[in-house]
């Protein structure tokens, strides 16, 4: 067995990695690297699950690490990258409401708020060590940061990545706060895959620069505006 202190050190380093990837997802304008950073974030989560498994030796954690790698490191990023090639957009430079820099500042503030809120809420539960508490804070913060991505980006495909990042936050939170039955975790992944499939296929429609899409729309009675198309 590896020494507990070393493992806790590793977990802390992985926490930092998660924060870095989250910050990158908020700020970057490059769509291609966005997907790879998402894959990296998921991989970090898989490593976290592994580290926790060494600490707690609960087989569910090992299974979580496994399905995370298969679904979120390989399958979903591959699929999104394929779609991105289809719609031929490389950069997402439009932002709603807040610019990347200010959203970084907002997310720092959010982390602080989450920290304070969770300290109060989790007071009643049995004392867990600091590591688990930080995991929970980080999970919720990651989720809120993902939500900010969804709010502040215009392109639907970037919103999908924001949603995925939110879901990573939920996974992180779930891992550190409590252990859910494996069947639930598994079904969530299935749900996620279907959701990503559908939304990305639909985004081809929205983000697409292809002209035939627009042509098809003119046939319908539902959309008869002049050529102010996608």
């Amino acid at each position: 067995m590896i020494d507990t202190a070393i493992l806790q050190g590793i977990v802390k380093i992985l926490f930092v990695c998660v924060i870095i990837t989250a910050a990158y997802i908020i700020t970057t304008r490059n769509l291609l690297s966005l997907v790879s950073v998402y894959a990296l974030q998921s991989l970090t989560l898989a490593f976290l699950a592994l580290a926790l498994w060494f600490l707690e030796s609960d087989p569910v954690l090992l299974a979580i690490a496994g399905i995370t790698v298969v679904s979120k490191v390989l399958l979903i990023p591959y699929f999104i990258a394929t779609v991105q090639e289809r719609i031929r957009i490389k950069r997402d430079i439009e932002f709603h409401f807040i610019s990347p820099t200010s959203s970084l500042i907002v997310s720092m503030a959010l982390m602080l708020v989450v920290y304070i809120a969770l300290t109060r809420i989790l007071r009643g539960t049995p004392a867990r060590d600091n590591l688990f508490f930080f995991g929970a804070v980080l999970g919720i913060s990651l989720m809120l940061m993902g939500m900010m991505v969804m709010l502040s980006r215009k392109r639907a495909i970037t919103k999908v990545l924001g949603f995925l990042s939110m879901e990573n936050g939920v996974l992180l939170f779930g891992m550190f706060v409590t252990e859910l039955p494996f069947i639930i975790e598994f079904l969530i992944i299935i749900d996620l895959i279907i959701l990503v499939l559908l939304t990305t296929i639909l985004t081809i429609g929205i983000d697409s620069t292809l002209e035939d899409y627009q042509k098809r729309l003119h046939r319908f009675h539902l959309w008869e505006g002049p050529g102010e198309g996608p």
Partner: protein
Amino acid sequence: MILLAFVLVALLTLLGIGISSTHGRMNTACILHAFLYILLAGYVLLFQQVPVSSFLIGSQFFFMDHFGLYEVLIASVIFTCAAVYARGYVESLLGSRELEKGSLRLFYASWTLLLFVLVLAFFSDNLALFWIFAELTTILSAMLVAILSARENIDAAIKYIFIASASMLFSFVGLIFLFETSRTVLGAGTLNWTVLMQHATAFPAGMMVAAFALVFIGFAAKSGIFPFHTWLPEAHAKAPSAVSAVLSAVLLNVGMYGIIRVWAIVHQTPAAATIALVMGLFGFFTVGIAAFSMLPQKNIKKMIAFSSVENMGFLLIGTAVSTPVAIFWVIFHIMAHAFTKAGLFFSAGILHRQYRSRLASDAVDDIRDVFQYQPFAAWGIIIGGLAIIGTPFFPAFFSEVFILIQLGGVSLPALLLLLALLFIAAASLGYFVMTSFSRVSAPGTPMEIEPYATPLTMKIPVLFLLALIICLGILFTGQEISFFDQIVRELMFA
């Protein structure tokens, strides 16, 4: 075992859709599917010991109690009607090439799966399992909205998915809180509703407030509660009318069902008073926003969609009052709203077919000479409209009166405010119907558009639902009362 019958019927339907080549056959499969579900749910209700516990021994994932069966019955009736309606409606969509022939199989497969997943959601004992099925209903129904593959529809579907799913993630965090609470209190963590209900009184208030607030975000988004209602009017207005009816009459219930289930747990804890207040406030905001959005509304389907928002807000207020009588009528109102609203959307769909070139979903409606072209649909809207605003002797009237009386017991100003808001909503619906239905061309002018020959299959569901709500309003049997009492008791509000 009975759950396996539900699964089997769904699989057979999917198989039927897979091998059939014509629209008629696929549609027949869907009608049969929903109809068999009515029979199955009715069988369980009449001949089995309810609540039926799960067939998966040792792991309580599914169960059937009165509330779940009730929701399944409503869903199956609506789906049967909507499938009959879709027979004519989808045919007409195909005719005008708004729906491509290639998408037909996808449409009916999603339709079948949607009903199946809904039934599983209503029969889930495990809240996390319920969450997953609720999430799947979002995805499948969004598929049905996007199926027309016009850009507007895709926009609406994407918005729907993003708002509903992102909020549902908060719900999941709430469920994790609930799980952790149960682990602290009971020793072993569980999300089984039946177990949580038994031990709810021991749960600490602070955790419960946090858990409920988070769970509420997701389910509120699913049922179109302010401030998460923004997806609803667009998705409902742009979906094909058969789908709008299902979205409004059944899918909104999923969110409400989740809120009521979790509220039944939290209601027993010391956190109840705080949460009731918050829920009531959200209810008032929802009704208010809906009423004032209805006021300037010029589009018939959006009008009906906002009326759904209003009704969901009303249900939330009733749930927040949470006296046994209020809950009794909340549960009754779910049914009254579902049947009435489905009928309204069906009628609006006929009008949409008639005036489709003028009824772009964002534009102002240009309905003219409606009694000349579509007298049937016009009367459907008028009677349905009267029913939904709570005119006496329609079912919604009784539920609204009794919930209002119960609200008056809590706070008189709240009662007056709600009355005013309901009046605004009713008046704007009435005003809209009167102005648009009385618009006639000058006498002697030739008919500009071809009258749309409404197929019989589109009329029968409207007639059936109207007859049903009139019956429900007039007849109120002892069995019905004891059935609703049973639900209230099982939810432990009485």
